[in-house]
């Protein structure tokens, strides 16, 4: 490393201060560390706010509770979408980008001052949009479909937020260049950084799409542009809105690999395969705007089929590959550590008491089984007729973004607090159950909303018991729909309990946790499997690595579920009124 510092030249070398991480031996740039802390804290604050709005939404949609008035309900729903889907996730992703570049590569971070400019822009933008929503006349939902109009500062806040995030992306890319130039690592970047790079590239595409649509919409809201085409708006808006979910996928898959590496010493089964799977994301995930336009007038079926399938499901292929290689790498590592009995000893004896591992594995399973399968079904051109804009849609994306991404981010926090904030996790017993509470709650939300959606219940709807309202032409959903909404409310309470616990544990640990130093650095990462041998797997492609019966069983179960559920839906579709 001394040579690396010498090569930086005087300015880089003098300006950068490092510490050595006692747990991993990585060299941590203190400027990067401060940026990671700031973004992670902002993320958790917005999770708390947005999650609170989410609970209010769920309690209103529970017919027996029906908490908020209709005006407040639409306000809360708009705020919920913005604060969790944008603010929480993108602030956290900024922290992940800085961590995956500067920390993992032991490099100094590029242009940390610009990092602060970006951070301030994001904060200002997030507050501005929140103010617009709370003022009450911008309840236009997260998607703000034209010609419905919000106040100008609603759009302006989003634009500032996006510019800030874009700066963060370029700092990440700059840091990769610096690390390469200063030779802080040898060979190719680690897989986790590669996954983060995937996320970053998709983020640049996403933010560009956002700029293309939000800037004209802002100008329209202040009166400089007369008309925005509603179909064009939707197409470009979703090039941002859906692609930004692919940033999440790339980021949380990278985090799965990261947590598997730190907690059980897992190593990718094949670098080539895992990286190719990420590459498939970059190449094909951006086509997903079509998922929101399958029952739209004005688009050809050919366009819909090619785009909705990510060009013949090549991006889905990427996820299915990760779905095997992540559990496979864990099984391989556990078997090398001596857990070789039967098909599932490796899984039974995995560190389930470590919240980082438990959260990661739950995220993996729920993202695949609930989010992945429902996403493909929802994104099938004709099947979408039965699901578009019903509660099936939020059911699906709560499985991907809440049970998948958010749970993965929570899980990695249990490593970030000791590694970056250098504090032990307080209340380890509560931390142990937190991922289960949140995970079970989130999967309940997903399942019950999908159930209600299958029964036809509309999303973004204040009251499904029309007879109670002054409605001219009332319609009654089946009683099962009300049951689903009640179970959804209960699940939301469970998830909210897990969420409150998470925020409390993180805040208390940062403020009052015992300081981490060389003496407790490894212990602070939580319980690990007892027989861990570091760098457990000798070599990928190694014959010994590839005895993974447990993973084959899991993948087989997943695939069978997938096929059955897929064709059951075609059966349902065939019972609809014929239409053409």
């Amino acid at each position, binding site marked *: 490393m001394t040579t690396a510092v010498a090569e930086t030249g005087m300015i880089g070398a003098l300006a950068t201060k490092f510490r050595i991480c006692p747990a991993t031996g990585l060299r941590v740039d203190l400027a990067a560390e401060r940026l990671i802390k700031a973004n992670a804290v902002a993320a958790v604050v917005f999770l708390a706010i947005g999650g609170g709005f989410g609970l209010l939404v769920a309690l209103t949609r529970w017919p027996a509770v029906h908490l908020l008035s209709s005006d407040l309900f*639409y306000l809360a729903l708009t705020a919920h979408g913005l604060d969790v889907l944008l603010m929480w996730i993108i602030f956290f992703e900024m922290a992940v980008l800085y961590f995956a570049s500067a920390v993992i590569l032991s490099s100094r971070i590029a242009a940390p001052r610009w990092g602060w400019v970006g951070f301030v822009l994001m904060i200002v933008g997030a507050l501005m949009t929140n103010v617009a929503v709370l003022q009450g006349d911008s309840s236009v939902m997260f998607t703000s479909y034209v010609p419905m109009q919000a106040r100008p500062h609603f759009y302006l806040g989003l634009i500032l937020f996006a510019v800030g995030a874009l700066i963060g992306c370029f700092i990440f890319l700059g840091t990769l260049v610096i690390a390469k130039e200063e030779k802080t690592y040898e060979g190719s970047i680690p897989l986790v950084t590669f996954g983060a790079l995937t996320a970053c590239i998709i983020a640049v595409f996403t933010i560009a799409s956002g700029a293309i649509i939000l800037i004209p919409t802002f100008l329209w809201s202040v009166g400089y542009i007369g008309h925005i085409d509603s179909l064009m708006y939707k197409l470009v808006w979703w090039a941002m809105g859906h692609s930004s979910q692919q940033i999440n996928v790339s980021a949380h898959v990278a985090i799965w690999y990261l947590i598997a590496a730190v907690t059980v010493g897992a190593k990718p089964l094949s670098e080539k395969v895992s990286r190719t799977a990420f590459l498939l994301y970059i190449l094909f995930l951006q086509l997903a705007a079509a998922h929101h336009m399958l*029952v739209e*007038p004005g688009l050809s079926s050919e366009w819909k089929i090619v785009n909705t399938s990510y060009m013949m499901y090549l991006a889905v292929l990427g996820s299915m590959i990760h779905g095997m290689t992540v559990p496979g790498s864990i099984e391989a590592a556990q078997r090398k550590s001596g857990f070789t009995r039967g098909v599932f000893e490796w899984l039974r004896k995995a560190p389930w008491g470590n919240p980082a591992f438990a959260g990661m594995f739950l995220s993996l399973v729920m993202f695949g089984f609930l989010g992945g399968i429902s996403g493909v079904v929802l994104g099938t051109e*004709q099947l979408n007729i039965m699901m578009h804009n019903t509660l099936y849609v939020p059911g699906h994306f709560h499985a991907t973004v809440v049970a998948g991404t958010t749970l993965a981010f929570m899980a990695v926090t249990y490593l970030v607090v000791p590694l970056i904030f250098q504090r032990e996790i307080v209340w380890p017993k509560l931390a142990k159950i937190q991922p289960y509470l949140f995970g079970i709650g989130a999967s309940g939300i997903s399942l019950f909303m999908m159930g209600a959606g299958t029964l036809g219940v509309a999303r*973004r709807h204040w009251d499904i018991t029309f007879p109670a309202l002054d409605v001219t032409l009332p319609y009654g*959903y089946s009683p099962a729909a009300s049951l689903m909404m009640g179970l959804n409310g209960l699940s939301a309470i469970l998830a909210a309990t897990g969420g409150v616990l998470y925020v409390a544990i993180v805040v208390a640990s940062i403020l009052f946790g015992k300081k981490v130093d060389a003496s407790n650095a490894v212990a602070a990462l939580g319980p690990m499997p007892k027989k861990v041998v570091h760098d457990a797997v000798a070599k990928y492609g190694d014959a010994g690595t590839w005895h993974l019966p447990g993973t084959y069983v899991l993948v087989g179960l997943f*695939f069978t579920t997938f096929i059955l559920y897929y064709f059951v839906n075609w059966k349902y579709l065939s019972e609809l009124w014929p239409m053409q």
Partner: protein
Amino acid sequence: MAIHPPQSRVWWKEPIAKAELVWIGVAFLWGLIMFFMMIYWHIYGQQNLSTQVGRIDPAVFEQRTNDFAEKFKVREEGDTGIPVVKPPAGGDAYMLARTYEWWPVLELEKGKSYKLHISSLDLQHGFSLQPINMNIQVHPGLEHVVTITPTEAGIYGVVCNEYCGLGHHVMTGRIYVVDSGQGG
């Protein structure tokens, strides 16, 4: 580990294990099956969304819907004043969306096909036919013509499922399906 650079510098030349290759092959084939399933359904399936769409001035669409309602009105819906309109079997039917109503109420015959014209006069709305759960997005300025064939008699609700403002949840409509030769 995944947080370290690849163990072998030339990682792209490492062999891929057979089980992994098999899974990639299976997943790829499954993707192809799902892709061609959509095309198959366009050829052999009964439920495909029409792509018959034209640009239309909302005022023109409103006028056509008014003319249609006047011509084929059979009664009024209770004391709401909303006309119930029964188009000839196999003919054109119109339903417009505006904040916050679907207008007019339609009466269709079971087993007959109708060309349903839908469009919005103001914002985007969602045509959600319940309980059969058929959902179509509606844009202002785009007239969508969907041929539908009701298969069962009954009273069907039309719920708006695209958020369209603070009165979104009161935006409902209705379609009656009667056995052929009845109703009116």
